[in-house]
């Protein structure tokens, strides 16, 4: 069961705005999904290793170096940003 209060908590964590009506709807729907996935409680897995990556690759890395970009390329990105000032993406104050 996922209560309306829990829905409020999760939606806050994931930065999702919800109306009162939606909170009720999602509480019902998420509870049904949770009940469905609870099927996994039927199996014991204490001694099993978890799988995060199926091909077994590990720690693929590259040098952390910036690549020079043309103005044409950066323009494409700036054109996508909702708010730009002096070729910089403008954001709201965090503090």
């Amino acid at each position, binding site marked *: 069961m996922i209560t309306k209060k829990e829905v409020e908590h999760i939606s806050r964590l994931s930065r999702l705005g919800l109306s009162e009506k939606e909170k009720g709807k999602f509480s019902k729907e998420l509870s049904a999904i949770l009940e469905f996935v609870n099927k*996994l409680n039927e199996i014991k*897995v204490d001694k099993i290793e978890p799988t995060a990556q199926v091909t077994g*690759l590990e720690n693929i890395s590259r040098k952390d170096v910036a690549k020079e970009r043309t103005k044409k390329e950066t323009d494409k990105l700036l054109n*996508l940003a909702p708010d730009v000032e002096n070729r910089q993406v403008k954001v709201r104050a965090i503090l």
Partner: protein
Amino acid sequence: MELNKLTISQAHQGLKKKEFSSIELTESVLNRIKKRNQEINAYLTVSEELALSQAKRTDNKIKNKEEISVLEGIPLAVKDAILVDGIRCTSASKILENYIAPYDATVIKKLRKAGSVFVGKTNLDEFTMGASGENSAFGPTKNPHDLKMVPGGSSSGSAAAVADDQTIYALGTDTGGSIRQPASFCGIVGLKTTYGRVSRYGLIAHASSLDQIGPITKTVEDARIIFDIIKGKDVKDSTNMDSQNEESEIKIKNLKIGIPKEYFVEGIDPDVEKIVKEAINEYEKMGANIVEVSLPYTEYALACYYIIMPAEASTNLARYDGIRYGLSEKGENLLEGYLKTKQKGFGDEVTRRIMMGTYVLSAGYYDAYYLKAQKVRTLIKQDFDNVFKKVDVLMGPVSPTPAFKIGEKIDDPVSMYLADIYTVSASLAGIPAISIPIGKIDKLPVGLQIMGKQFDDEKILQVAKFYENRNL
């Protein structure tokens, strides 16, 4: 001759022999789209200008007596979750309604180099989340075989476009069945490749340990052509690998086909079961050995998938914050801006998955849900490892039913999830799987799923081709 009905191989032969030009071929596809798209809603964007300029380039090459490669001058539709430089890419979401892709995905780069003609971007379930195509913010796609029915999802538009001859071939993506299930519902071929064999650079991410790009085509032969062009190592996708199992020509009398008994239990439509079993009989008649096998953890695959996938989706979709791109709603403060942007931008299924994912990853629930599901994933993968010691490939249904009615499952998320029951296991294990058309129930197509060992993509394509060629 209706050029839009051709396969890749047929179109290539025709272009080479100068029976028609690439412009004529492309126009026949564009005309079909103009005639049918309003009804089917397979395309979200049609890139006519780009397509005709690409077609013209091929025609000039042919005129100058230059050699053309197999894909040159041939129209392609791209699922609208894959970036094509300069073309709008929405992922069927309001949050990306006006997003213009700033670069080419690696698969697009490869297909561009091969001379493909990009006719447009196809509809899908928002952010590839769904099994019916109904979760698109821009309206559902309809099944060309029966307009009251769904085409399957999430590669709904790509599958419908191929089945309705609104393209010669298409690209789709598959996270838990999103290529195979719509291919089955629309009566065409869809290949989900082994995890890691095709680069996802430039694919809008859904669940990163599962997502794969693959071809949706009219024939197995065509699927092989596309796979050979898009596969291979790309440093821009760190999960990408060059591995493949050595390919040798298979003799059908040496072929061992496993039939997982867990795929033929209660819940499967009896007509689907009958058609699938008939197709397997065809293989037996051709000389293959059929053996019953068991994948004991099958019944846990769907629950496992519906924990891992939303967990990954919830982290991937955190990026849509209205700051760097996409929909951006203003609020009194930073937090309110986020809340409003996501509320307005995301549809219900996306919201459900973000919340479910956040829940299973949150403090106090991580071990009970996410970690547990990762352990069950190990068991599911081991099932396949064990069975592939005994057989070459596995065969079974793609989905328990043929296409269902538009609106039938949309208000019941769990019943919609059950449409993925036979496809999620291969996704969790990272193995290749293909859907091929094998019959119909009235108007509605039914597919056969062929699954192979990790990196055995070439092998399942060969096995699928036996069926396609059986009456030749």
